[in-house]
């Protein structure tokens, strides 16, 4: 089991406070979904977890040790777009993670090592339903298939934390439902910790075992940049293990309140 500890996290950007006073403890397997209004810092939060940006203050501890301040193989990422490599075939895209790890200079494997890696990559491609398309280039795939590929790329490295930045935001509703099923299956199988940013509140509640809402609680009209967003609701849905009714009722109420607030703010 892996545990992520976030202690008093704060992120400022050129005097503008984006996030502040964020405290959180998450253990695997937890599927955290993150919702909030546009520009409330939820994507920044994900980039901090990824190591793409550095904290201004606070600590990010994975199993007690600070997370490296740059992206690495312990954290996988699926972006909304552009995260597959156009010059590699589907198989090559998944193979890349395995090749990089075992061949520091050339980034390529040969002979038996390559055959082993191909077997492993093909198994991952089967799991996401892309085995038939393994010799195609990404430009020949639909948006949904490209996202499947991006997920397969991340999965083959077996990251402790999987970060999803609006991964299904650009997909059609039908395909999105398929992708929900896929990601839940993969999550159950791999038992990892997932953080997923989404615009879609329904999606957040369907997928997550825990919903985090981000918003600004303090506002100073004279200095709009003085305060940042924080986690306003931390709603455990507890799918798959015991849960109490009160938590669900509170969560529903919180969602409705949040929806009403979003609607009011446009």
């Amino acid at each position: 089991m892996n545990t992520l500890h976030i202690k008093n996290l704060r992120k400022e950007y050129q005097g503008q406070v984006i996030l502040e006073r964020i405290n959180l403890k998450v253990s695997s397997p937890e599927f955290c979904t993150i919702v909030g209004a546009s520009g409330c810092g939820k994507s920044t939060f994900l980039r901090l977890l990824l190591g793409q940006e550095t904290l201004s203050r606070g600590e990010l501890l994975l199993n007690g040790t600070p997370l490296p301040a740059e992206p690495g193989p312990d954290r996988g990422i699926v972006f909304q777009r552009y995260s597959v490599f156009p010059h590699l075939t589907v198989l090559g895209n998944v193979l890349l993670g395995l090749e990089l790890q075992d061949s520091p200079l050339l980034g390529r494997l040969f002979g038996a090592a390559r055959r082993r890696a191909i077997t492993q990559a093909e198994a991952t491609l089967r799991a996401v339903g892309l085995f038939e398309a393994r010799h195609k280039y990404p430009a020949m795939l639909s948006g949904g298939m490209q996202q499947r590929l991006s997920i397969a790329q991340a999965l083959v490295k077996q990251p402790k934390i999987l970060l999803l930045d609006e991964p299904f935001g650009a997909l059609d509703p039908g395909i999105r439902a398929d992708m929900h099923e896929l990601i839940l299956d993969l999550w159950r199988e791999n038992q990892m910790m997932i953080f997923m940013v989404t615009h879609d509140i329904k999606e957040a509640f369907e997928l997550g075992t825990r919903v985090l809402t981000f918003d600004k609680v303090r506002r100073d009209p004279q200095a709009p940049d003085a305060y940042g967003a924080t986690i306003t609701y931390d709603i455990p849905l507890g799918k798959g293990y015991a849960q109490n009714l009160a938590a669900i009722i509170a969560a529903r109420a919180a969602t409705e309140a949040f929806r009403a607030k979003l609607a009011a703010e446009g």
Partner: protein
Amino acid sequence: MRRLLNQQPGRFSALCLSALPFLLIIIVYLTASDLRLADNPNDKLLPSLGSFKEAIVQAALEPNRRTGEIQLWSDTAASLQRLLLAVAISALLGLMFGIATGVIPYFNAGLSPLIAVLSMIPPLAILPILFILFGLGELSKIMLIILGVAPSIMRELHLRVIDIPHEQLIKAQTLGASTWQVIWRVVLPQLLPRLLNAVRLTLGSAWLFLIAAEAIAAESGLGYRIFLLRRYLAMDTILPYVAWITLLAFLSDYLLRVLSRRLFPWAAKT
């Protein structure tokens, strides 16, 4: 009747239309040439088809009486050798610079301002310096082409590296890639078709600098020959030479395009 901007020529008429200007030029030339030659049979300015043929046979098929070489081929070989060497070196420099400054912020801070300034120097203005430094031999000509062509390839490739979505570089790092592996497996392969494209676009100026250098100081080469024959008003050889250079330029462009499509099928949509 549809608007003019919505009317498309058919295949046959498009072909005829594209041939028309060429035919017109040939007709105008032949008429003018006939008129002048009727006036003065020794006129050298607009030679007849017959004297072109004679000059081409002499330049392209018969060995030179003094050197024993076939003039057109030895000139072409000399020029192409300079051009290919200089363009290859420029492409390599462009690739190294583009990747280094596009991927590594420290290189970008250190090198980009220098290249921005260097690329503003008109290369022909420092041709005398090149002649002084490197002599009148091959080196100064190749240096001129490199100085003229490399900065624009460098800057173009720098921009193309920056065009690679940042998501890809982050993704590669989450797959465990080191800086070197990101360059080797992610950036370089995606840059190669763009390099071929950049080379295609700069070939025109490479020819310009080649001919300029050959015109000023050389003992062989297509540009040298044209400027030498100018003294004798030998239009019957100069015009075929120009046509030959145009054909070479066109062929190299075509070749690079086909090569790019063959080698990088994944980049076909661009």
